[in-house]
């Protein structure tokens, strides 16, 4: 029954392999059609894609959740606020202050917290049925990495001055012929680091979702005989919950590390 409905959804009769491939790609790629399986679908206007809706939705949910959690701030935090406070303290004391120093760390903690909670919310939203992971789209993660790149460049210029920023690319204690090689590598590294941030988050999320849908696709191909795949898919799904937290953590950690390298180029 599911097989026939998938074949019907894909338009024409194909062999089951390409049907499963279309099934996987349909669930991880961006489109203008938001499908609520099995009820129906909603066509979105031309300026909005499904992943765009997910970005906006996660921002709205995040703001609403944090506003509700922070409405009653007493001396003893409770409920969601406890969890939020745990992560904020983790970001401030384990990432911002060690990599950026006391003053800059405290100043940049709000940025790092925003990145962490936003990425976490997008990752987790992608795990709900009928929702999509916006972070499995290179454009979304690229935009997030551009924020990091902007702080790495303009934040460092603002802090160290233009001269200090340029001097940051020239390591001292190295004979000058070597600098001809080292300086271009350092400058290219600025952009490669940001690109690596974007690709890491994107590829992790995309790969995780493809694995889940591949396992479900095996069930489409072999029917009831492949029922154990359901258990496997569930296990991978639980792994994805962990990965959602881990990738948000890694993105924030590396952002703090990279910004720290530009802010304090001496070490």
């Amino acid at each position, binding site marked *: 029954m599911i097989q026939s409905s998938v074949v019907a959804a894909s338009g024409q009769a194909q*062999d*089951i*392999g*390409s049907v*499963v*491939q279309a099934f996987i790609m349909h669930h991880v790629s961006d489109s203008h059609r938001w499908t609520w399986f099995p009820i129906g679908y909603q066509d979105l206007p031309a300026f909005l894609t499904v992943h765009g809706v997910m970005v906006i939705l996660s921002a709205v949910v995040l703001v609403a959740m944090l506003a509700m959690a922070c409405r009653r701030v007493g001396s003893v935090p409770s409920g969601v606020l406890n969890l939020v406070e745990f992560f904020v303290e983790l970001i401030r004391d*384990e990432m911002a202050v060690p990599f950026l120093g006391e003053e800059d760390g405290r100043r940049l903690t709000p940025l790092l917290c925003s990145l962490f909670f936003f990425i976490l919310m997008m990752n987790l939203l992608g795990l709900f049925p009928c929702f999509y992971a916006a972070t499995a789209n290179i454009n979304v993660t690229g935009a997030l990495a551009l924020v990091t790149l902007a702080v790495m460049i303009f934040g460092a210029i603002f802090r160290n001055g233009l001269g200090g920023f340029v001097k940051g690319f020239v390591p001292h204690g190295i004979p000058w012929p070597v600098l001809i090689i080292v300086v271009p590598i350092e400058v290219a590294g600025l952009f490669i680091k940001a690109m*690596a941030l974007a*690709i*890491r988050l*994107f*590829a*992790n999320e*995309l*790969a995780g979702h493809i694995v889940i849908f591949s396992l479900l696709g095996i069930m489409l*191909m072999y029917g009831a005989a492949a029922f154990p795949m359901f258990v496997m898919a569930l296990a991978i799904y639980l792994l994805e919950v962990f990965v959602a937290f881990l990738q948000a*953590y*890694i993105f924030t*950690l*590396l952002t703090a*590390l990279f910004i720290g390298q530009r802010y304090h180029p001496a070490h």
Partner: protein
Amino acid sequence: MVGLSGSIAGIGAGLCAIGAGLGVGLVGASAVEGIARQPEMAPKIQVTMLIVAALVEGVALFCAVICLLGK
């Protein structure tokens, strides 16, 4: 018997899995060894381990994306 169409990109994906497995495995093994020797340093070692593992994994993911695109 049904089958997915094969391509050389699958071999590439397997090769980058070997590299990433070796790299992350070495990082994890050394971190566990370090924590076993000096349990009081565990938090610092864990953070460093995560950073290095993420960097190693980043290279492997570049390869995985290339395999995906080159399919």
